[in-house]
């Protein structure tokens, strides 16, 4: 079992829709949770960074962590065609040396 599991999609939504992207993880020691956006043939771009459980909002993006169920979510409101990309979730232990990534979910927002 991978440390972080993510449905690869693909996910296709109309412009303006609310998008929900999800990951699960197995290591209860994970405390740091990240969402990256990756455009085709580009490096991952950090979108959201959260510590422990709770919600964090940044513009149209909301990251949510539920440590009791080991569930990580990213919500995108009023989705735009420019949001079309692969979204990667990642997790890390406080003293760990590496980030563990999901496989990424491919999102297409249709104009």
């Amino acid at each position, binding site marked *: 079992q991978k440390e972080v599991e993510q449905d690869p999609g693909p996910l296709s939504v109309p412009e303006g829709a609310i998008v929900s992207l999800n990951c699960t993880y197995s290591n209860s020691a994970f405390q740091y949770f990240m969402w990256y956006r990756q455009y085709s043939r580009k490096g991952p*771009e950090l979108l959201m960074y959260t510590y422990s459980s709770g919600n964090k909002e940044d513009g149209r993006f909301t990251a949510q962590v539920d440590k009791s169920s080991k569930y990580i979510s990213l919500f995108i409101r009023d989705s735009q065609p420019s949001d079309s990309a692969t979204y*990667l979730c990642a997790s890390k232990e406080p*003293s760990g040396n590496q980030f563990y990534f*999901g496989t990424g979910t491919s999102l297409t927002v249709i104009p």
Partner: protein
Amino acid sequence: GAGVSQTPSNKVTEKGKYVELRCDPISGHTALYWYRQSLGQGPEFLIYFQGTGAADDSGLPNDRFFAVRPEGSVSTLKIQRTERGDSAVYLCASSLGLVNTEAFFGQGTRLTVV
């Protein structure tokens, strides 16, 4: 520049050749990571540096892979006797430190072994 810089952006090499991939982290970032990403997959950990030392090289697949960071800034990932299975995007990331800091990635080096 302000971000993580990786060179070259693309590298095509023949099977059996030696390659070097370079990473220039964000100024002041002491932590540096190398990851490898295959098509349709998430990045997989290779090695982590804190300063000049390789604090964790548990992700290096075999002894053909080696990385250095002699002055605690620029890092070079070295691959000997390349194989077709080494073809992937090699990503470098840096962060201020190990704990409680975000990691920022470069654009990656796309390595193709023919």
